[in-house]
């Protein structure tokens, strides 16, 4: 259960790194597999193998409407100032893009998870994280996303995304994360 808290964070990194692999896996799913006999191992050779040309790989674009699409092409996290919960100017374009995406995929249900940095006490930070989650919810609703598609929760300071101690880490940990609960492709 604890693992699933950070699942989305881990997922995000993993998905970016292995999007190509997972897409390939998805596409190959319907293919039936047949039992095969193992190829004999290559006979040892004293000659150097011929040089092979280098191949570079990069992730395939995420499937539109997927959670990967949301994370990679829209962005799932906005940040806040110390002890504030008002939506910053620099967060508005991202939240506008989240709104647009949620309109395009109306079956998607999301949970906004509010987070706080470690420079506060546990209970106050739970309340502060809840305020942040609700600021994002209110923004999305004001832009036309149906309120019933959005739930909120606060993790307070319990789920940092940066383990460091310093303003850089604290800034990252003051955020609201839009997690897709269901309905994505």
């Amino acid at each position, binding site marked *: 259960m*604890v693992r699933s808290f950070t699942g989305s964070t881990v997922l995000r990194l993993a998905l970016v790194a292995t999007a190509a692999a997972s897409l390939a896996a998805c596409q190959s799913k319907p293919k039936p597999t047949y039992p095969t006999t193992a190829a004999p191992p290559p006979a040892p050779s004293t000659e150097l193998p011929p040089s092979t040309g280098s191949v570079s790989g990069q992730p395939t674009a995420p499937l539109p409407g997927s959670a990967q699409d949301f994370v990679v092409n829209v962005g799932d996290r906005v940040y806040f100032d110390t002890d504030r919960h008002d939506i910053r100017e620099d967060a508005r374009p991202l939240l506008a893009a989240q709104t647009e995406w949620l309109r395009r995929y109306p079956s998607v249900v999301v949970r906004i998870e509010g987070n706080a940095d470690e420079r506060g006490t546990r209970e106050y930070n739970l309340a502060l994280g809840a305020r942040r989650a609700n600021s994002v919810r209110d923004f999305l609703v004001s832009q036309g996303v149906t309120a019933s598609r959005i739930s909120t929760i606060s993790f307070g300071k319990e789920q940092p995304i940066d383990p460091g101690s310093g303003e850089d880490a604290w800034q990252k940990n003051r955020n609201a994360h839009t997690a897709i609960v269901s309905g994505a492709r």
Partner: protein
Amino acid sequence: MIKSRVQSRDPIAALLFSLLCAITALALAHPARAEIEVNVNRGDVQPLPIAVPGFGGGQMGADISQVISANLQRSGLFRPLDPASFVEKGLTANVQPRFGDWKTINAQALVNGQVTVEGGKLRVDFRLWDVFAEQQLLGLQFTASPESWRKVAHKISDAVYERLTGEKGYFDTRVVFVAESGSRLNPVKRLAIMDQDGANPSYLTSGDSIVMTPRFSSNSQEVTYMSLRPDSSTIYILNLETARRESLGTFPGMVFAPRFSPDGGKVVFSVERGGNSDIYVMNLSSRTSTRLTTDPSIDTSGSFSPDGSRIVFNSDRAGSPQLYVMGADGSGPRRISSGSGRYTTPVWSPTGEFIAFTKQTGGEFHIGVMRADGSDERLLTSSYLDEGPTWAPNGRVLMFSRETPGGPPKLWSVDVTGRILQPMPYPGAGSDPAWSPLLN
């Protein structure tokens, strides 16, 4: 030197009082009386030299006296002497000590005892002596099952502490806390309980959800705490005897920050809805809850006064988190914190006299105390992150959690004078301690 009950109690009690009031000048100006002055040095408490030789009766006797010695030492009010310096050896509880032998090592007090195990029962006899007055101050006998030997040692510690300071002890108590493991990015938090000296730690939850902020009921039989899952939070009441766990119920938003009322019949807690956190109280027998605050600010961390008539809480209704006191029915909220900085996690002391809190100022965290009307604020600690004080049942010591940058939280304690600051004996990572009342 302790000469008699009156003279042994008054100097320490008077000194504690003067420290509490931070009137060190008075202590300095106090005319020195030869026998008393040994406890007092320029306004500081000089720990009382005390000898606790191994109780007779084999290994258990030695173990019991070690637990007593460690308790007294940690209180900061006593200085147990090195057993290697003892002149009289093999002292049992049934003979009078050779006082001269104890005077030569300047032991002001002496605790000796005898352990016998008969018919599956443990019996411990002990005596407390005023060495220089050559008088017995206390003689008691405890019987228990042999596996309860540590509890007996804590009972004896409490008896010695009370006889010599005039205040109730706090050694036969337990601490419920959150044992932490895993990494910062993937923490595992389990509810745990241990004796106040770190012994007998055991887990109460499995770690499959994040738990925080446990608190004892006044009978020490129940603990209320909050559990946080990816999509919800729940307040539980866990019965430590039966292991039965019940939820406070389902609410429209998050629930957090639970504390029992002094009579155990209610729980005050916070409910968040639409980003607004308010304080509620639930009557546990009728299961009805009442909203106590309606301000559109953060209202949380409610804590009852020991008589149950008032609640101190944390609110940022004035712009930054500050401490407020209201009636237990939510009436007449009044701000009590007045200094600069952010005040959170108020906890009313068991005596009703003080409120402990966490304060943030100047980039540091502090544990502090103030009187219930907000006067006489004193900061007892200062560090990168100190948080969440809890009172020992006699109101003399606070436990809290301390973090260094990037490090795991550890349990620490500090006395109300701020003089005796030390890590708790529990070696692991822990946070959110809550001290039990004195056990039976």
